[in-house]
């Protein structure tokens, strides 16, 4: 966790956070499905100040061939931050952090995808973080689910992402960048709302067993709110009568 930043008031005496939110409020989330011309499925998501573009290709041929599985399609994920997405310019080459997050998101999506019907193929999910402000992996996961549905990849459920955490001794929902740097814990969660399963879970920081329970409960609630936005994005693209994309 980052050092304390005594200039920022994480939680004031009225229970209001540094960006004006209450402890159990998520940032503003908006999602648009089908924003890219070439990708089979795509989504653009703004989660607070996070701006993320996701593109999906597949199922498609696997190269090199030895990576393909004769029994099932495989899922490949790439979480990548643009050099201009963070405070200090980031080298375009993938960092170890990006490699780990790519894997964690892949394992959050796999339980939802039904790829056994596409042996010897791959579904590729590319998440590009254009602007980062804390909670990018949850936002990227959320956008990826919408892009996968947009591509028509069969899924048991969508996966929604939202983090819970602890700052200024309070349990908070949807940790932003300042709270991540100066707070006490950050717990990103990925959740399948209809099957009621958690498929992404990590922790940065320290929580008592009771705080851990509170975070999970609050985080799941946040995921359910995010799910409503995912639904809305897909309905807007596919079910509006006579509307254009």
């Amino acid at each position: 966790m980052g050092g304390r930043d005594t200039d920022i008031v994480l939680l004031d005496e009225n229970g209001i956070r540094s960006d004006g939110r209450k402890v159990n409020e998520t940032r503003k989330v908006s999602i648009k499905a089908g924003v890219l011309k070439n990708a089979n499925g795509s989504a653009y998501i703004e989660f607070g100040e996070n701006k993320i573009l996701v593109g999906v290709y597949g199922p498609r041929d696997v190269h090199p061939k030895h990576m393909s599985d004769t029994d099932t399609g495989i899922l490949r994920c790439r979480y990548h931050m643009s050099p201009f997405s963070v405070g200090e310019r980031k080298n375009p080459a993938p960092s170890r952090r990006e490699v780990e997050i790519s894997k964690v998101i892949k394992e959050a999506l796999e339980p939802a995808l039904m790829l056994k019907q596409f042996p010897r193929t791959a579904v590729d999910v590319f998440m590009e973080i254009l602007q980062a402000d804390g909670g990018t992996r949850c936002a990227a996961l959320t956008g990826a689910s919408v892009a996968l549905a947009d591509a028509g990849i069969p899924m048991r459920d969508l996966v929604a992402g939202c983090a819970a955490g602890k700052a200024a001794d309070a349990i908070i929902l949807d940790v932003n960048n300042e709270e991540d740097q100066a707070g006490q814990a950050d717990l990103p969660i990925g959740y399948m709302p209809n099957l009621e399963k958690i498929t992404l879970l990590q922790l940065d920081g320290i929580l008592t067993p009771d705080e851990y329970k509170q975070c999970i409960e609050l985080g799941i609630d946040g995921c359910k709110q995010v799910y409503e936005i995912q639904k809305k994005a897909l309905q807007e693209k596919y079910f509006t009568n006579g509307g254009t994309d």
Partner: protein
Amino acid sequence: MASSSIIDQLKKNQILDMLKDEKRIDGRAFDEVRELSIDVGVIPKAEGSARARLGDTEVVAGVKIQPERPFPDTGDQGMLICTAEILPIAHPDVETGPPSPPVVELARVTDRGIRESKMIDMKQLVLEKNKSVVGIFCDNAVTDHDGNLFDACSYATTAALNSCKIPKYEMKDEVPTKVENEFDDPPITTLPVSVTMAKIDDYIIVDPNLDEWSIMDARITITTNSDGNIVALQKGGADGFTHDDLIKCGEISAKVGLKIREIIKESSSGGN
């Protein structure tokens, strides 16, 4: 060669037949550029940014500015580096991993167009001579590929740099420190604009889309600055241009560049 990029024979014949009638497959004139729209400030947390849409090609450019040590032989100048990357979301044939030669070429041509034009007066970006200078990075990310990435990256970069804000720095104990909420406009001397032309049989067409790009015999990218002078040239493709072709291309690039420059000015001057 991935199968999605092999153009089908019917379309190829259609393009060639239409060229004989002075027509293009999307209805444009030979010297007509696709619809260009540029939005600046799309990445508010960066020091500058622009999204350029050239037809269905889309590029996002982000500018990051931070203090850097100068290059050893230019201690009296700031640092400017432009890059370009084709994101795997942009086209099914894009592979992840280290940049392929076409991507390296794209990045270097984009960088040269800005650098050689002397768009930014680097001498004004020194904090302490030979020790600390302002470093400007402009990174292009191609998000959708429908041909002519050279021009899309050029326009996004020029617009992003033209509208960026340079933080004020003061030297405190030999260390450059940002002064909060104080910014300067960048020292812009000119607006470089690239124009890419493809040669198909004997025809020269401006701003090829992906279909035209995949059957062209050769291409040339010519970058001009606000004075109409040529600041960068790059020829590509397997075939060659005649002497007359090159003169013609030079004239086209100045004429078309003029129009594009106006679009860039209009979209990015609000930020200045």
